[in-house]
């Protein structure tokens, strides 16, 4: 090899590296633009939570107000309607956690049955479960409400929690997850060892599909936390309502003519900010589970 080709290679390599760096910077810039877009409403929320009602609409949206009012807003928020906000947060947390855990367990058991057993009606049940994804919310919520009213379950948290524990998509994910990731021979081995079906489920299946379960639990947790329509219709007492319905009620209260209207913007904004913090924490803590579990469902 001669010196000149050496230099040529060196220059070419350098050029390629600098090209790569340039494309890296360009792509980073592109994504940064979208990141700006993703963060913008959240930034607005944070900034607005520090403002008084008056500043909220008279000062620039992406700047601070004339005074820093965050702590006062928080105090107002927590004091409003005898501290019902914390009650809403607690309700959301309770409903979402129970629904998340319940959905994960139910979907795992059901997915296990569908993935690992042959039985009469298996395909019919699976088709029904998948078909359920297509049903519009209103098709169910209005009759659910009427049925709950008939059965005395309306304005009962169970009317929200129990339906939220049904996760057709969770059943689908767990079925796929187990078909791919759970070796039949493990179950056979356990049977040979004398384990009963429920021991196998508890001692072998559950530990092995835990990552998938976490994903389903997360999906249901977030789904329940974000749910608005179902609790809106099922729960009417403020002490049972979750944060979405509660905040939307305040929001509507602030938009209501005819007397009884109230100006609650700072409180709503501050409440919105506080209410998304738990979910964001859950996201940050359990972020890696999103990937593992979702892959199983997406690739098939």
């Amino acid at each position, binding site marked *: 090899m001669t010196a000149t080709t050496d230099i040529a290679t060196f220059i070419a390599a350098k050029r390629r590296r600098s090209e790569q760096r340039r494309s890296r910077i360009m792509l980073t810039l592109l994504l940064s633009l979208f990141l700006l877009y993703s963060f913008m409403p959240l930034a607005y929320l944070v900034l607005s939570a520090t403002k008084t009602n008056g500043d909220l609409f008279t000062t620039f949206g992406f700047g601070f107000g004339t005074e820093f009012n965050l702590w006062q807003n928080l105090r107002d928020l927590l004091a409003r309607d005898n501290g019902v906000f914390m009650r809403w947060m607690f309700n959301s947390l309770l409903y979402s956690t129970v629904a998340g855990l319940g959905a994960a367990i139910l979907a795992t058991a059901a997915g296990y049955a569908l993935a690992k057993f042959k039985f009469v009606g298996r395909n019919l049940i699976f088709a029904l479960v998948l078909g359920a994804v297509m049903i519009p919310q209103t098709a169910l919520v209005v009759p659910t409400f009427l049925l709950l009213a008939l059965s005395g379950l309306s304005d009962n948290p169970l009317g929200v929690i129990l339906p939220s524990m049904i996760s057709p998509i969770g059943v689908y994910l767990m079925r796929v997850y187990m078909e791919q990731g759970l070796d039949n*021979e493990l179950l056979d081995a*356990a*049977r*040979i*060892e004398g384990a009963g079906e429920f021991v196998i489920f508890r001692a072998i299946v559950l530990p092995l599909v835990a990552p998938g379960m976490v994903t389903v639990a997360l999906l249901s947790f977030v789904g329940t936390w974000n749910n608005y329509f179902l609790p809106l219709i099922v729960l009417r007492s403020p002490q049972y309502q979750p944060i979405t319905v509660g905040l939307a009620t305040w929001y509507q209260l602030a938009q209501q003519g005819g007397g009884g209207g109230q100006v609650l913007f700072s409180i709503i904004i501050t409440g919105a900010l506080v209410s998304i913090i738990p979910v964001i924490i859950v996201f940050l803590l359990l972020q890696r589970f999103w990937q593992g579990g979702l892959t199983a469902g997406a690739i098939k």
Partner: protein
Amino acid sequence: MTDVAIRSLNKTFGALEIIPDLNLNVPDGSFTVLVGPSGCGKSTLLRMIAGLEQPTRGSIAIGGTDVTYEEPSKRGISMVFQSYALFPHMTVGQNIDFGMRIAKVPKEEREKKVAYAAGVLKLEKLLDRKPSALSGGQRQRVAIGRSIVRDPKVFLFDEPLSNLDAALRGQMRVELAELHQRLKATMIYVTHDQVEAMTLADQIVVMNAGRIEQIGDPLSLYEKPETEFVATFIGSPKMNLIKTADTQAMGVATIGIRPEHLEVCDAGKWSAVVRVVEKLGNEAIAYLDSEVGDLTLRLVGTPALKPGDQLRMSPRDGHVHYFDQHGRRMAGPSS
């Protein structure tokens, strides 16, 4: 007496008959290998013996007791799976211990048995590891260890070596043979690899399409294959099958000659051209185009053959197998 007796066994999946009607005796203390191509029903048969599948008809008796509908764990069997089926979230020790824990065996006894199995299989240092931290051979031994502690009357093996590399497979074969000699237990072993069958078995059951083609010891299968299928399935390279007008005139549908039973000589019966030669050192395999079709030829040592060479050959006397048009063995040409 822990023989296994299978009577009129039938297994049907929907409209598909996997095993039409099967009778088999596995003698006490034997190492019986079920061998056959994939899909021949051998694994289904093994799983029915284990109790993991239910037969559609027929019965299975282990040690004289009808266990056809008995729970797997109550049949006195153990099973080693193709994938080893080690519980990934448990340590080696916990894996071996699992069945005894389920059966609520007292703790001291469990510990003693785990220690014993670990000793036999040289697993002492691995007891606290998770399966993912083991090599293929080690996993295999753990699976066997889990089998041993059950004190089974019958060991079942479902292609246990197919996930190992060639060298390890050879080594594990020897270990399994030693295990059999030590435990003197009845073993039923499923494989599609005829080499494993030949080396391990004292009784081979060749299966094809859910039927038993032939039962016998390795040598008799090799030397006296009852069917064309067995003839080609047992032995490597495969037996040459020749269909010519000559043989058909004799009332023989096919004649079979093992590659080592073809003799090269200038006065040979058939002429052929060498296509490929594989030289293995101690022997050489030559693939030929001949006037009676493709032939395989096995030669001792390193013969000076190369592609394109012309040669003639004939079958060695007394080593020709005759099959009728149903593929069944014939004593010899009928006329």
